[in-house]
């Protein structure tokens, strides 16, 4: 419900790149506004407006990249849109995708949720002290949001090599809260992506980029399949458009990270292609047979085709 609201607001036409900051609103950190609304604030502004240097304590960590330098879209650098609140970067992106920091007002709630659901494995400070689960600090809110909203976290068991997708235990709002709290420990990109104006995406580019970058693992129909050893590429048929972008930008588990070589526009094309033509394929030929290719088709041809015709033979002919 909340998520819907948030998304509907983000789905403004791209003409409205300058989004009105909703009220001095829920400011950052201790200066939090009085409204107390749990809705993550939409910090939006023109890139030219509030360009200030960032205070040291708000600077984003680049630890995850193991280096310094500049990055293309997907990281806060080299992007056309940036917004700061109290000196801290809270929104960046392009007219195609905006990456927003979850509201700091969610941090206390996120802390509580994290201690309840996550700290057993990841440790109370989310730095993975026990060696059974990784350090989550400095991974960026999109990473945390992806793992929780797809139901992969909290994990059911530590045994499986790859946490399976399942019905999410936490609500999207709670996931945002956890992401906000984890990020407050060591701020990092990428923030939560919000795809702008998906109807304007170029499906042909999306399809082409999908086959180039994604189909090698997720298969051309997005059905997913088993990979080396115990790993597998999950099906894309349940993913939301936000999750697709989060996965592309963060590279969960064995998935490579597509940050340098895909622009926001390209990522939007892919994400829209996935949530339209992959998830709702134009099966004009009839029943789609699960989209797993000639093996199923062979079984249908042999069982339905040859099988039925053999039964017809059995009826026509003599059975002595």
């Amino acid at each position, binding site marked *: 419900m909340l998520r819907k609201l948030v998304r509907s607001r983000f789905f403004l036409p791209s003409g409205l790149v300058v989004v009105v900051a909703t009220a001095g609103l829920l400011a950052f950190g201790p200066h939090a506004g009085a409204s107390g609304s749990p809705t993550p604030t939409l910090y939006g502004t023109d890139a030219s407006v509030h360009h200030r240097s960032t205070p040291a304590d708000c600077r984003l960590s680049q630890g995850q990249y193991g280096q310094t330098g500049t990055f293309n879209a997907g990281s806060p650098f080299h992007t056309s849109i940036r917004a700061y609140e109290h000196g801290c970067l809270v929104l960046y992106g392009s007219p195609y995708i905006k990456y927003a920091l979850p509201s700091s007002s969610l941090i206390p709630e996120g802390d509580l949720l994290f201690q309840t659901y996550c700290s057993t494995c990841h440790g109370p400070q989310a730095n993975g002290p026990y060696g059974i689960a990784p350090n989550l600090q400095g991974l960026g809110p999109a990473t945390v949001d992806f793992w929780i909203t797809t139901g992969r976290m909290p994990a059911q068991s530590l045994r499986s090599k790859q946490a399976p997708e399942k019905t999410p235990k936490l609500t999207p709002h709670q996931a945002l809260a956890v992401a906000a709290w984890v990020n407050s420990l060591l701020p990092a990109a990428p923030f939560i992506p919000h795809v702008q104006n998906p109807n304007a995406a170029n*499906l*042909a580019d*999306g*399809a*082409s980029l999908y*086959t*180039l970058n994604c*189909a*090698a*693992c*997720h*298969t*051309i*129909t997005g*059905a*997913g*399949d*088993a*990979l*080396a*050893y*115990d790993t*597998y*590429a999950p099906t894309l048929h349940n993913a939301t458009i936000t999750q697709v972008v989060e996965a592309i930008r963060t590279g969960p588990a064995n998935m490579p990270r597509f940050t340098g070589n895909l622009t926001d526009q390209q990522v939007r094309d892919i994400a829209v*292609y996935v949530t339209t*033509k992959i998830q709702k*394929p*134009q*099966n*004009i*030929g*009839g*029943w*789609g*047979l699960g*989209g*797993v*290719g*000639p*093996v199923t*088709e*062979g079984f*249908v*041809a*042999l069982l*339905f*085709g*040859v099988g*039925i*015709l*053999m039964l*017809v*033979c*059995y*009826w*026509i*002919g*003599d*059975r*002595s």
Partner: protein
Amino acid sequence: MSDATVPKPRTKREAQAARGPYGRLGQAINEADDRFGVAKGGRVFLDKIFPDHWSFMLGEIALYSFVVLIATGIFLTLYYVPSSAEVTYHGVYAPLRGVRMTEAYASSVDLSFAVRCGLLMRQMHHWACDVFVGAIVVHMARIFFTGAFRKPRETNWIIGVTLLIMAILNGFVGYSLPDDLISGTGIRIAYSILLSIPVVGTYLAFFLFGGQYPGTEIIPRFYIIHVLILPVIIGGLIAAHLGLLVRQKHTQFRGRHKTEHNVVGSPMFPTFMAKTTGFLFMITAVLTLLGGLAQINPIWQFGPYQPYKISYAVQPDWYMGWLDGALRIMPSWEWTGWGHTIPFMVLLPSVVFPGLIFTICYGWPIIERYFTKDNELHNLLDRPRDRPKRTGAGAAMIGLMFTCFAASSTDVLANYFNISLNEVLWFFRIAVIVVPIICGFTAWRICLELQGVPEAGKRKRANVIIRTAAGEYTSERTEPRPGDHDEELAPEPVPTLIELEPVGVADGGNGEVDTPPGVRRVTR
């Protein structure tokens, strides 16, 4: 025939009288007989007997699938453009608009979306191909297990095996024509397999493809192979196959009144013709329903082929699946030395293995004769249980083929059962040896057991214990139940004229008189 009794105007009656008792059709037959001599052979053809056993109709599935393949294929040739020239797509399907692709792919997508019935024809063609090869295999299994390949029919068996190979080849070539991402990957693999052949491999590949992979020649070349060369060979072989069948007459199972010197069943005309024409319609119907309701090879989702693009989980059509499976499970053996390389991990599963399999198929009549020393002519079929070794060998072959086929979907199986892909692959490396042995041995053993059971497969007959007046007990078997007899009537040659109802009733038209009771034969 009864025209003569119907009162007609004088002039017409005279005209009819002039035509003779069989009317215009009879006259037409006379005319044809004058020129071609159709009467003598034609009558024999009408009376030709086809045994009625259901398993004898399996070959018809293949034959009529081929008819559908030809019909739909002709339709497709009208719209398909066999060219590797690059064009930009501006058609109906949005996710491809503005994309550069070959003319072959663009025309395949266009004939699916923009031509009325085009997609139905394309999908029917593809389903018919899958069913065609499947029916050939099932038919072949019937021939094998019943020993129908024995003398005098070895030649027809060899023609049949050739037909299977040609069908598989043409299926692969046709699958490659749309030039989508999946089929392009298949062509890439075919090129690499050609490369693997020692000494001449690179030359073969360069000659077939007109140079380096992929080149621009392969689509037009595959096209002419697919629509002309192989279909003509297949059509010719089918003609020879059927010609030999007619010349040598059909085999039949053992049974009362059935001997090595006769054929018992239904006459060509009208019974068999009605059944088989109806079957042609039903086969077309099943293929049409599949083509209309079940999607096959949605090329528009795959996108055009680019040599640097790939999708996971790409498999060939099922009849090539066993080769793909063999390629997957093969250990990585490669020989290098004296400046040369022999990639056994490609050569063995994709060249030597199918060569071996088809050599066994071709040579089976010879192999069997070598062991049985049987030089007799056989027109009566074996029951599979009576030939345990042959049945065992066939079961082993089916087990081997099926294991290889299943191995081509290791990834799908690993995903479905949620187990490690590597373990699945190892499972198949072992299964490909173990499964045929188990299948062969089990089949052989079951045959022996079945032989030991008298009248296995037939309904049991009760034993009645009778106490005589003297107090003596005897047991007596009851009569077989109605319908358990093989044949209750002695078979007869087909009469020229047949009556199904008493004369007069059919013509009287009141329709009240049914066939009198008491003469109805028990249904077989």
